[in-house]
Every structure is written in C-alpha cells, then in structure tokens.
C-alpha cells in the first residue's frame, strides 16, 4: 500500500530533520484547520511510481523551454516506442510543479495527452495517465480539474477495465478531480462514474490497492462540499454499499503490504453517506450498522488487549461516526437486532481509555455514540443502560470526568441519560461512585460542566433521599453553597433549588444581593 509504506520511510527520520518535520507538520495542521473552517478542506493523492522509488533525491527542475521541447516531441513522434520514452520524460518533468503551468498554457496540451490516453499503445496510455495524474494534483489553481475534463470519459471507461495498475492511476486521477468543482462532479455523474466504480470494485475485489483507490475516489466524490442532491441517492441506489461492506471484514491481520488502507477508505465513504442523512434506513437495511458495529467490537477487543496498530484510529474514527449517526435512522428498538452484541458498549469504553492522550477527540466521539445509545426512548435505551452496569463500565466513564475537550460534558450526558431511567439506575450510579465525582466536577471552571453536573445531581438526589444524604456525607453541601455565588444565574438557580427542596439541612443564601 503506497501510503503507509511511504510513511514508514518518513518514520525513519532522526535529529534535526525530525524537528523540522514536526514544525512543518504543525504549520500544516494549522492550515488544514483554517481550510476546514472555510469549507475548503481538500486533499489530493500523488501516487509514487515504481521507477521513482529507485531514483534518489529530487529531479532537476527543467526549464520551461525544455518542457515545451519534450511536449513537441510527444506531439510529433510517430514511433510508439519513442513516443513512450518521450511521454515518460515529460511525466518525470511534471513531477516539478512549475512544469504544470508550462504545459497547461500550451495549446491543446490536454487534448494531446488524451489522444495518447486512448491510443493503441498500452505503454503510452500508462505514461499519458501518469502525466494527467501529475496535473490532477497540481498545487496551482490554474491547473484545475475543469481544464482536464476532456479526459474524464476515458478515465471512467478505463476503470471498468482489467489492468490493476492502470485502473489505480485512473481512479486516483478522478479522485483528485472531484473536489475542485461542482461542474466537474456533475459531468462525472452524467458520464456514469458511479456504475463504473461499482463494476470496478467487483472486478478488482481481490486487489486491495485498487479497492483502496475506489474507496478514496468515492469518498472524494461524496464528501465534496456543495454535494448535489443527486450524488448520494445515486450511490445508495447503485449497489455499491454491499461491496463496501464486504471490505469491512473484521479481519485484523492486515496484509503487510497494504495495511488497513482499503478498509479505512471504505469506512470513510460510509461515514459520509450516513451523516448526509439522505436515506439511512436504506443503509441500515443493507447491513451497514451490523457490519460497522462488528468491526468496532473486533477493534475494541484489540485495543483493550493493548495491541494498537499504526493507523487504527483512522479506521475507528469513521466507524464511530457512521454508527453514531445511524442510531438515529429509526426507533432504537427497531435497530435492536443489529445491536445485540453488548461488547459494543465495552468497545465504546475501551476506545476513550486507549486514545485519551493521543486522540482526545476520538475519546469524545466514542462517548457520543454511547449517548445516542442511551438517550432514545426509555424502553429502548434501558437495555443499554443496564448493560453498562452489568459490564461494570460506569466506573470507566466516571474516570473520564476530569478531562476537558468536551469529553466530560459528553460523559455527563450519558450519566444523565442513565439517571433518567429511574430510581434503581440512580442508586446504581451512586454505588459506582458518581457522587464524589460530581463533587469534583461541580468545582470545575467550565460553566457547562457545572450545569450538567447539577442536572445529573438533581436527578440523583430527587430520586431517593438516601442519595441526598449520601451527597451531604460526601461534603457536597459546601460545594453547592459556594455555587450560589456564581455569576451565572442558571447555575445559581439550580443549586438553590437543590438546596431548598432536596437536601438537608436547608441552607440558602439570599442571592438577590449577588451582582
């Protein structure tokens, strides 16, 4: 698998190179965050070619007249062997971005490349698609996918073909073109990219590199901004879903060359489909929820044992999101058959424990899924709430309460959902040690945390006077009294209500004097 292999090379960096790498990465990350906020988060893939792996170092950047010279030779050449060599030279020249501008400004340059793309020589086709591939991921905005649109009908046709390497290049080229413009996507849709992807994934289902490329291209197609209303329904109707799901096999001994790449790409496709909420019922009906939860269970088991593979979080992330959103596709009771493995709950608690320090956002999303399981209609969610106690998972959740990044708020939601189930649940929560934990969260700086803590506490002490007494024994009263001086009225009101109605002795302070 081209990507993880390449990354392993980078992992070998040492010393000052590493610092520079980290610095660049941090800067890059900032750029990506800004891009996401502007809804412009786009990535393009550049495949490395085999002959480039052998070569060392960077190419000499050719001067523009040299590039033009190469191009002229490509145009003129009749001898196919020579033409192939010329195309190869041009392709290597295109590794340097400045050459892109030279070529794109040359009249009919794309037409010439397309001629070679559909020409009789397989080698010329390969080199031509490589040239187009270089152009498709150009950093220059002038070299946009609209300029390359002449190539798309051929690229789409070829992905239903048989040669894996060629197909892979066509796929990544198309995938790079998808995010650029709405117009290009409309053209691709009209030219039948979706049925082509469908047949491609079936033809090449044993070739993991191609499967990964299909996943990538599809994810680019459906995640692009301003996705038209037509793309996702077309995907849902195309029959692609079962094939994507078949890639998500819970096999955790990844091919050493390919790693988790194909599974990751297909999982991200499913996430984009589920969060668009176009027809999640159809997704569920085709077994998406079942397959995603099984894979999460397998991953959870591995994580709990401590065997965390490189890149595993890239797979866990989209699966969590897919499951989280699919839980709203219908009444939770109706989804029961797909959710009858209680180990899912254990997995959802294992992920935060394992990834808390490295990926706190993943921990938060994992607890979000727990929220969606425990907050449906009372009768439907009660089984999940009970299971959390039965599997002794509540203490795990309580241990997450000190952590920010939205983690403690989401945990408090889940605990509030459980408390809401009734008195028995509240008693169990108290047994698990929730009251002293709430005494701590009530002192936290974030007013949202304090508000949620008061809500959960309110539920507990209102459900049984024993719990109110226990709270007082845990020295909770002074905490509430302190809260009555808070500058947030919503917080003061809740604290006051608890002190007045549910907690002995009644100690209220006249809060009207507070500023």
């Amino acid at each position, binding site marked *: 698998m081209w*990507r993880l292999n*390449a990354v392993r090379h*980078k992992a070998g960096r040492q010393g000052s190179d*590493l610092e520079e790498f980290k610095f*660049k990465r*941090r800067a890059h*990350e900032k750029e*990506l*965050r800004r891009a*996401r906020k502007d809804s412009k*988060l786009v*990535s393009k*893939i550049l495949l490395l070619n085999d002959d480039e792996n052998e070569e060392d170092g960077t190419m000499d950047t050719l001067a523009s007249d040299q590039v033009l010279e190469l191009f002229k030779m490509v145009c003129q050449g009749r001898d196919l062997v020579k033409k192939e060599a010329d195309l190869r030279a041009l392709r290597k020249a295109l590794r340097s971005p400045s050459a892109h501008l030279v070529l794109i400004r040359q009249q009919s340059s794309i037409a010439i490349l397309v001629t070679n793309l559909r020409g009789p020589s397989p080698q010329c086709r390969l080199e031509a698609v490589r040239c187009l591939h270089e152009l498709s991921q150009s950093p220059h905005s002038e070299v946009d996918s609209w300029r390359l649109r002449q190539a798309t009908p051929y690229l789409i046709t070829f992905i239903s073909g048989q040669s894996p390497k060629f197909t892979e290049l066509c796929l990544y080229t198309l995938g790079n073109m998808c995010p650029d413009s709405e117009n290009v996507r409309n053209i691709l849709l009209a030219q039948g990219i979706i049925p082509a992807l469908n047949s491609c994934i079936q033809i090449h289902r044993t070739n993991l590199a191609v499967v990964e490329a299909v996943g990538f291209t599809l994810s680019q197609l459906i995640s692009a901004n301003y996705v038209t209303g037509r793309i996702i329904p077309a995907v849902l109707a195309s029959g692609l879903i079962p094939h994507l799901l078949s890639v998500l096999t819970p096999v955790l001994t990844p091919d050493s060359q390919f790693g988790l790449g194909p599974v990751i790409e297909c999982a*991200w496709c499913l996430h*984009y489909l589920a*969060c*668009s909420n176009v027809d999640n019922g159809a997704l569920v009906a085709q077994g998406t929820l079942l397959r995603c939860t099984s894979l999460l269970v397998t991953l959870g088991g591995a994580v709990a044992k401590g065997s965390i593979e*490189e*890149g595993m*979080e*890239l797979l866990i*992330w*989209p699966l969590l*999101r897919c499951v*989280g959103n699919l839980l709203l596709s219908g009444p939770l009771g109706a989804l029961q058959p797909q959710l009858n493995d209680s180990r899912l709950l254990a997995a959802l608690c294992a992920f935060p424990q394992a990834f808390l*320090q*490295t990926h*706190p956002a*993943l921990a*938060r*999303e994992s607890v*979000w899924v727990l929220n*969606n399981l*425990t907050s449906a*209609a009372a009768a439907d969610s009660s089984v999940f709430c009970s299971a959390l106690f039965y599997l002794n998972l509540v203490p795990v959740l309580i241990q997450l309460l000190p*952590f*920010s990044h939205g983690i403690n708020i989401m945990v408090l939601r889940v605990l509030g*959902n459980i408390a809401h189930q*009734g008195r028995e649940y509240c008693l169990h929560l108290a047994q698990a040690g929730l009251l002293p934990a709430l005494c701590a*969260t009530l*002192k*936290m*700086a*974030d007013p949202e*945390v*304090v508000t*949620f803590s*008061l*809500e959960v506490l*309110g539920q507990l002490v*209102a*459900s049984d006077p024993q719990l109110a007494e226990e709270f007082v024994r845990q020295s909770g009263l002074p905490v509430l009294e*302190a809260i009555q*001086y808070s*500058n947030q009225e919503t*917080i003061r*009101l*809740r604290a006051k*209500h608890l002190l007045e109605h549910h907690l002995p002795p009644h100690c209220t302070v006249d809060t009207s004097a507070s*500023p």
Partner: protein
Amino acid sequence: MFGRIENEDSIDTKVGFSPGSLFSSFTSQDREAKLTFTFIPHQILLNKDHEFFEDGDIHRHLYLQNLSTCPVYDSPTARQCEFRCHISGCSQVFSTVEEYEHHYNTLHRHMCSSCQRSLPSARLLDIHIQEWHDSLFSILAERQDMYQCLVEGCSLKFRTREQRKDHMIKIHQYPSDFMFDKAKRIKKINIANKNRQQKGTSMEVSMSGSEPEDVCQVLSDQPEEEEYMELNHSLEPAHHKPTETTAQQRETLLQVSIYFKSQMAHYFLHGAPHDSNVFPLDLQSMCNDPECIH
C-alpha cells in the same frame, strides 16, 4: 418525553429535563423544577462539517497528505479540567481541587452576607455578625459584658474590645500583634481611612505600620493569613457604620430610646399632654449626637 432530535447542528446545553417521571404530583415545586432543570436525554445527529468532527477530519487529511505519522506524536492531548472559584467577582482558576478548596476556605467560607467578609470559622462568623451588624449590640455592650473571648471553649466575656484583647494576650498567650478584630483589606486605598476611623477605639493604631505587609501577605496567600480574624475582599461594606460615637453619646442614646419608648407608651395609654412642646424639647436637650434628627 424523550426526544429524538434530528438534524441538530450544534451540541448546545439548552436541552430539556423532565422530572415528570420522578414527581408523582404536580406541585409548585415540580413546576419550579421543570423551569429550572432543563436536561432531556436526546440523541444527537451530526453532519460532516460539524466542529465536533474537526480533529478527526484533520487527522484524516494529514494522513492523506502523508504527514500523519511521526515517531513522537504532536497532536492535542487530553487536558484535565481546571477548577474555578464560583464566587462572583473572584474567578480565580486552579489546576487541582486541593488548591481551589484551600482558596475557597481561606477567602470565601463563612462569609458574612452583610459585609462580604470571610471568617475562619462559623463561630467567629457568628461573633462578627453580632459585634458588627447587630445594632443593639453596642447599646447592650454598655451595660453588660458582651465581647466574648475568641478562643473556643473560653466562655468569658468582656466590657470592651481592649479588655478582651488583653485577656487573650495574657491568659491565652496570643501575640500582641494578632489581628483581633481589625478588617484586612485587599485594596490598599482603604487602609488609611480605616486607621483614621479606628483611632478612637482601639489600640490597632500601633499596628498600622505593619499594614502594607499584611495586605501583601493576604494577596500572596501566605499561611499567616490564618491568624487574621477577618479578610475583606471588597470595598467599605455598605452596612457597617464606623463607631464614631463616644461612650457618653451611646449612654445618651440608650436613655433616649428608653425614654422615648416610655413616652410613647404613655401617649398610647393616656393620650398626649396638652403641652406637646415638652416632648421634643426634652429629647433635643438630651441628645448630643450631631446626627440626631429630632
């Protein structure tokens, strides 16, 4: 009442709580609870562009752009929540519960609701309220021993603050520079004023020289704080009147009030005397308080 809220774009806290399941009847308490507590369990649907998903998306794109793995990981780690003092106007932040609790116990516990001063214990708070905010106290103190010894377990009372202080120094071996009943101020501006006001009544004048130091100690949270009876973190309290009146004036006022009461009683029982000028004149001649309204 449990909601399935679809297409919710943000995870806001404003979601409803229905205690209906807990309360069997619709009392006004329930109605109040329904307005105060608003959490309802509900599922949350998130679209792909939600900020909740930001970190995961960034991670994916770093991976696509070949920058994701690094031997020494550099991304945001989970932070432990900070603790904040809730007292309005304080808002100090702490990284551990212990620090917060020490701060709270030192500066905000046992707070007098009249003047916002914080006392070290409930007992001292009671004494403070009695001595400073009970309007009858100074009047009664003229006639009987009202100033309690501050030491727990010692039930002796004294006629004046001075006597109490002497007792505590001699019998309980308190240092003479112990801040017996002088208010400490965080804001330096008020020190001078306080000195002037207290001049007539106490021997704290001698300690005024050490004032700036004390203020600094209060500000820097040194253990010496524990010695201080009162810590004031606000400006001159609204309700506290400086004791400007002399002992003689207080005696007069006491007599006036007794007299006035008996006069009124007489009025009500027997009707006013025809010569009603007698009444006001008597009071005016007796009262030496420049602020007397009569």
